[in-house]
């Protein structure tokens, strides 16, 4: 068990190192930091001085190492636009995105798991067709159009929810609904497949033969066994939502990581872009790592690979 976690952790670190190197390359490609920092009209001497001071005249790999050492100490550069440390910006903006993502994934799980399990319990029947339809709508509807539809219906027609801003819990409902709809298809599919597989298994037949009541069979046995793939999918979907929320944050004017990235791109503020990419990737890597560890605890077979 310890060795499984150690190896899994090693992989996560390796992935993060690779991504940090890629993001560092992106930062380097975005132009000469010394020139951007010196500002327009400054002399070549000053640019050269900045280059020396910050070590930007050294070989790329040395620069990466210096950057990495600093990054691990919490210093990931300064924003050109805001002039404040990038770390502060990320820490400020992350909670909004995390709250939005968490709310979306909870909404998606609460609707998609029951729907998927019901569909798997009665394959080919009406409820299965409904689940299929929802999944189809989910994969085909562009998230920004769905957001506008929600605004038009819930915000304007019925005027039950605020249409923009991120001040309160209620502000997050509509954007979370849009995001949730996007991740429902995968969860529906996986819980439907899990249910079908469980229904065919021997232990369900045994449970039935023992005379357990149907709802106990499905809630007690089946739910637990569809949990392993659902945990895996949910962690992945949560990761997707954090990265994919840029469109929704943009429409609903929620000042999260996605909005920050979008602004930073438009202002050529690449230290911020780099940090945002790193933060979202790190969130994904940590989430999937946690999910794998949780799954290993639920299902001992995983430990024995």
């Amino acid at each position, binding site marked *: 068990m310890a060795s499984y976690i150690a190896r899994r952790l090693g992989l996560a670190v390796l*992935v993060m190192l690779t*991504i940090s190197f890629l993001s560092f390359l*992106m930062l380097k490609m975005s132009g000469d930091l010394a020139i951007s920092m010196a500002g327009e009209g400054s002399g070549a001497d000053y640019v050269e001085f900045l280059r020396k001071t910050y070590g930007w005249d050294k070989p790329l790999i040395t620069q990466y190492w210096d950057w990495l050492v600093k990054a691990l100490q919490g210093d990931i550069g300064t924003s050109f636009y805001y002039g404040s440390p990038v770390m502060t910006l990320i820490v400020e903006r992350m909670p909004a995105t995390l709250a939005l993502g968490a709310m979306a994934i909870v909404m998606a799980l609460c609707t998609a798991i029951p729907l998927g399990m019901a569909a798997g319990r009665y394959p080919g029947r009406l409820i299965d067709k409904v689940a299929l339809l929802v999944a189809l709508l989910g994969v085909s509807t*562009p998230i*920004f159009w769905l957001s506008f539809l929600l605004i038009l219906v819930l915000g304007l027609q019925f005027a039950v929810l605020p249409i923009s801003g991120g001040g309160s819990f209620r502000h997050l409902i509509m954007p979370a609904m849009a995001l949730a709809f996007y991740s429902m298809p995968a969860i529906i599919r996986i819980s439907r497949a899990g249910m079908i597989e469980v229904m065919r298994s021997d232990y369900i037949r045994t449970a039935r033969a023992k005379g357990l009541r149907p709802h106990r069979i499905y809630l007690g046995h089946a739910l637990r066994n569809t949990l392993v793939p659902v945990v895996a999918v949910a962690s992945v979907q949560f990761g997707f939502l954090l990265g994919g929320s840029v*469109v929704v944050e*943009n429409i609903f004017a929620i000042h999260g990581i996605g909005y920050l990235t979008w602004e930073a791109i438009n202002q050529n503020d690449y230290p911020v872009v780099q940090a945002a990419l790193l933060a979202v990737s790190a969130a994904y890597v940590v989430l999937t790592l946690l999910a794998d560890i949780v799954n290993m605890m639920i299902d001992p077979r995983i430990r024995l*690979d």
Partner: protein
Amino acid sequence: MTMPIIEDTATARLWKRPRLPVGRFGLIVGAAIIAAILFAALLAPWIAPHSPYDQSLTNRLIKPVFMDGGSWNHVLGTDHLGRDYLSRLMFGARLSLMIGFGTILMSALVGIGLGLAAGYFGGRVDLVVMFLLTVRLSLPIMLVAISLVGLLGNSLFLMMVILACFLWDQFLVVTRSLTMRFRDAEFVQAARAAGLSDRKIMISEILPNLVSPLVVVATLEMAHAILLEAALSFLGLGIRPPDSSWGLMIAEAKDFVFFEPWLVNVPGLAIFILVAGITFLGEGLRSLYAPDGSR
């Protein structure tokens, strides 16, 4: 030692796309939708009622024909600059489809190449490829795509290259798992005994067996590419005005959404129909070669 770990984690991540058993009915519906949109897109320069670029301040925000105040002259109305909406829609379809096809061609090349190598050679090659896949899946595709577009510029070709950098994962996984299955098949052993090179075996012996599943992957990934392009253009980091893209049309209309909601709904519905059509086609094709939904 770490191989099973990489493999488990990478394949577990790939349950993102649901399989939808739409059957042959779906295949026909999907094919019909795609054929109609393809027809409108390809012939747009000849059959579009107006130019997609011509502005007319006196004809701003005319409503579509199905609403009060609409006319047959502008079937889907005009936008805030007086440009004919149907014509812009038709020209936008050209770009969407072009980006879809272009992206898929490139990403298929990458994914199939890596998948063949990983599945055929196994061992260390497989390890490296699966690590690449894990890294790719850990990158937030939307954020990285907009960052790269912002950094490198948004020419049509660059956008296809950038999207192709991200959409090879499904090609890789399908190719790899099937190649592993065929690696020790008798016809491959025969080819090896006949002295064929590894490359020859992969391309002319194994690859032909993978065509039908890969066509399905290509179809579904094309839907993915089109949605991404629309989102990029919506964020102002894709197709540039005055060219027309469905995502861009929604972005241009968003200030009018409260007064003229159809301006947003027409291109939104268009994207929905196209993506649903492609999904139907892909899932329908899958049900043709794997009726039990096994793959």
